[in-house]
C-alpha cells in the first residue's frame, strides 16, 4: 500500500510531463483507491514497483539490493511519511509566503527571500523609509538624531503568534517593570489591538514590517529579539538602556555589569 501511495504521487506528477507514466499512474491510483476503501489491491503493482527498484539496485550493489528487498515495506512507509511531512511543510511554507512574505517565520529563511534575518519575522505591515541610526549594545540601534525629553516611553511591538515575540516579551516586561515609576511602558500586539498612531510608529521603526520591535525612549530601538544574546545578555542590555534613558534611577543601574554597558551607549 505504501509503495502504491508514494508511487501514485510521483507518477501522477511525472504523468504531467510524459504520457509513458500514465498507465502506471492509473494502476497506482486503482490500487490506492481499493485499499482506502478496504478492498484488496487487485493488481500486482506493489510487486512491480518492488521488482523494478530491486532490479536497479542489484546492478549496483547486491548488499543494498538485499537490504531494500527485505525491508521494502518499512522503507516504503518511511518514504511515504517523509513525503507527506515534506508536502505539509511545503504547503505551510507557501502559506507563510502568501500571508507573511516569508516561507519560514521562525528562521526568516526563504528561497524567495534569501538572506532573511534570524530572530524576526515579517509582519505584513510595511511602508515608511528607514531612518538614520548606528548600532549599539545588544543589537539595538541608536537614533543619533533623537533625544529623550521628559518621561521616556518604551514599547514592545509584536504579535501573539510570533515565536521571537514570545521569547522577548516576558524579558521586556520583566526588565521594564523595574522602571515603571520612571518610564511609560506599553506592549502592543499588532495583530490584535492598536491605535493608528501606534501603527505609524511601527511602520516608522520597522519599514519592512519585521517583528518584534523594541523601542526605548524613542532613542534606541531594535528590530528582532535578543535571542542571540541569551536571556542574561538580553536582560543586561535592556537594563542598561533603560538606565540610560531614565537617568540611572534604581540601584541596579550602578552595578558594574550594567554601568559598564551603559558607558558604551
Amino acid at each position: 500500500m505504501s509503495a502504491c501511495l508514494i508511487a501514485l504521487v510521483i507518477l501522477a506528477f511525472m504523468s504531467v510531463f510524459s504520457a509513458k507514466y500514465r498507465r502506471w499512474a492509473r494502476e497506482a491510483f486503482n490500487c490506492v483507491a481499493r485499499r482506502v476503501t478496504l478492498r484488496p489491491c487487485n493488481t500486482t503493482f506493489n510487486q512491480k514497483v518492488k521488482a523494478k527498484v530491486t532490479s536497479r539496485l542489484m546492478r549496483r550493489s547486491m548488499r543494498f539490493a538485499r537490504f531494500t528487498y527485505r525491508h521494502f515495506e518499512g522503507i516504503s512507509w518511511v518514504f511515504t511519511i517523509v513525503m507527506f511531512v515534506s508536502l505539509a511543510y511545503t504547503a505551510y511554507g507557501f502559506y507563510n509566503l502568501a500571508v507573511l512574505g516569508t516561507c519560514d517565520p521562525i528562521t526568516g529563511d526563504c528561497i524567495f527571500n534569501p538572506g532573511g534575518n534570524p530572530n524576526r519575522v515579517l509582519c505584513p505591515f510595511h511602508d515608511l523609509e528607514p531612518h538614520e541610526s548606528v548600532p549599539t549594545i545588544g543589537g539595538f540601534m541608536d537614533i543619533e538624531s533623537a533625544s529623550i525629553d521628559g518621561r521616556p516611553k518604551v514599547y514592545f511591538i509584536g504579535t501573539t503568534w510570533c515565536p521571537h515575540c514570545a521569547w522577548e516579551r516576558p524579558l521586556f516586561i520583566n526588565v521594564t517593570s523595574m522602571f515603571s515609576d520612571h518610564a511609560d511602558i506599553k506592549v502592543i500586539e499588532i495583530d490584535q489591538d492598536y491605535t493608528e498612531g501606534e501603527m505609524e510608529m511601527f511602520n516608522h521603526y520597522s519599514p519592512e514590517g519585521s517583528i518584534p520591535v523594541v523601542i526605548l525612549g524613542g532613542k534606541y530601538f531594535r528590530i528582532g529579539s535578543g535571542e542571540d544574546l541569551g536571556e542574561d545578555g538580553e536582560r543586561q542590555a535592556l537594563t542598561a538602556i533603560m538606565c540610560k534613558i531614565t537617568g540611572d534611577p534604581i540601584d541596579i543601574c550602578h552595578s558594574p555589569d550594567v554601568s559598564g554597558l551603559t558607558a558604551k551607549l
Partner: protein
Amino acid sequence: MDVDSIREDFVVLQKEVNGKPIIYMDSACMSLKPLKVLEAINNYYMNFPSCAGRSNHTLSNQVEEERKKAREAIQKFIGADRSNEIIFTRNTTEGLNLVMSSLDFDEGDVILTTDREHNSNLIPCHMLAKSAGITHQVVKSGDDFTFDMDRFQQALSDKVKLVSFVYTSNLDGHTLPVKEIIKAAHDNGSMVMLDAAQAVPHHDVNVKKLDVDFLAFSGHKMLGPTGTGALYVKEELQGLLRPFMVGGETVEWSTYDDHKFLNPPERFEAGLQNYAGEIGFAAAARYISSVGKDNISWHEQKLTERLHEGLSSIKGVEIVGVQNPSLRGGITSFNVSGMGFHEVAMLLNENDNIMVRSGQHCVHSWFKAHEIEGSVRASLYLYNTEEEVDKMVSAIGEIAKLS
C-alpha cells in the same frame, strides 16, 4: 534438430529489449509463431479474404479448399482416421466445454478428474454438478505427485460416465499414463476425454493408438495463431453430442418451425469461422511435423533436466509438483523461499528479459489443496537453448541471494 536454424524462423527472437535478447519461457501459456504460420495467415487476408462454403465464387471456393486442407492437416497431425472427427474450436477450453455441455448426463452420473485439472476442465464439472446433479470425483495423486493408478482403478464404478483428465499437466509437466487409463476406463464402460493442450504441441499424440473418445487442444500453444483449437470426437460418439452453439453454417435447412442439422463437424461450428486462424493452425501443425515431434520432445527433455539440475543446486529453490525431471516434459514450476513468486518472475524479466509465468496457472484447486500460494513456471519449447537455460539458472541464483 538445428535449434539455431529454427530460432531464425521466429521474428520475435531476433528482437532485443533494453539491449538484451528475449528469453521466452512461457510457451505453456502461448507459444511463439514461426514465419510460415504468419505467412499462411497473411496469405489468406491478402489473396482470398472471403467466406467459405456460403458463396460460389472463386475466392470462396479457394477458402473452402484451404479450410478442407487445414482440417486434414490437423487430422493427420493427431492420427485421426477421418477429417470429420476434427471440430475446429477457439481453444481447448471451448472443446472441453462443448463435450461437457453436449453430452447427456443423468443425476448420479459420475465424472472423474485428477487433482491437477486446469479450470477449463474443472469448472464445467462444477456447473454440471449444479445443473445436472452429476457427482464430480477427484482422483488424488500419490505422495510424489505422480498419477496414482490404484486410486483411479478404485474410483472406477459403473456410475462413472466420463473420465476427463489432463493429459500433460500445465502445472508441472507431468504426463499421465493415458493409454492405461483409457483402457481401464473403457473396460469399465466409461468414456474418456483428454485435455491435451500441453501434450499435442510437445510429443507424438495419436488418437487412434490411444483409442481416446474426446481430445481437445489449442493452436496457440503449438505455434499456431490465437483463437484456434480443435476437438477430436470419435466418429461413433458424435451422435451423443447435442449441438453446443447453433446458428449459421450448422443447418442444412430451416423453416420457421424446424431445421435439419448438418453432419459433424459442421453442426458444431456455428457462425463465421476463423478461416485465417485455421489455415495458420494447419501451417503450425505442418511446421512441427517437419521438425519432428520426437526431436522436439527429446530436446525439451534435455533442457528440462539441465534446468532441474541447475535449480536444484541453488539454496532456497523448491521445485513444485513432480520432482523427477524425466517425468515432467518441458515445464518446471518452482519457488524461491522467502520471496513472492510474482516478484521472482518480475525480477527475471527486469534483470535478464527472461519471460516466465507466475501465479496459480489456472490450477487454483491444486495450489489451495496443497496450501501453496503459487509458483514461478518456466515452460520450454523447440526454440529454447541450453544457453538460455544456463542464463535462467544463473539469474535465479542471483535473485535467491536477496532472500
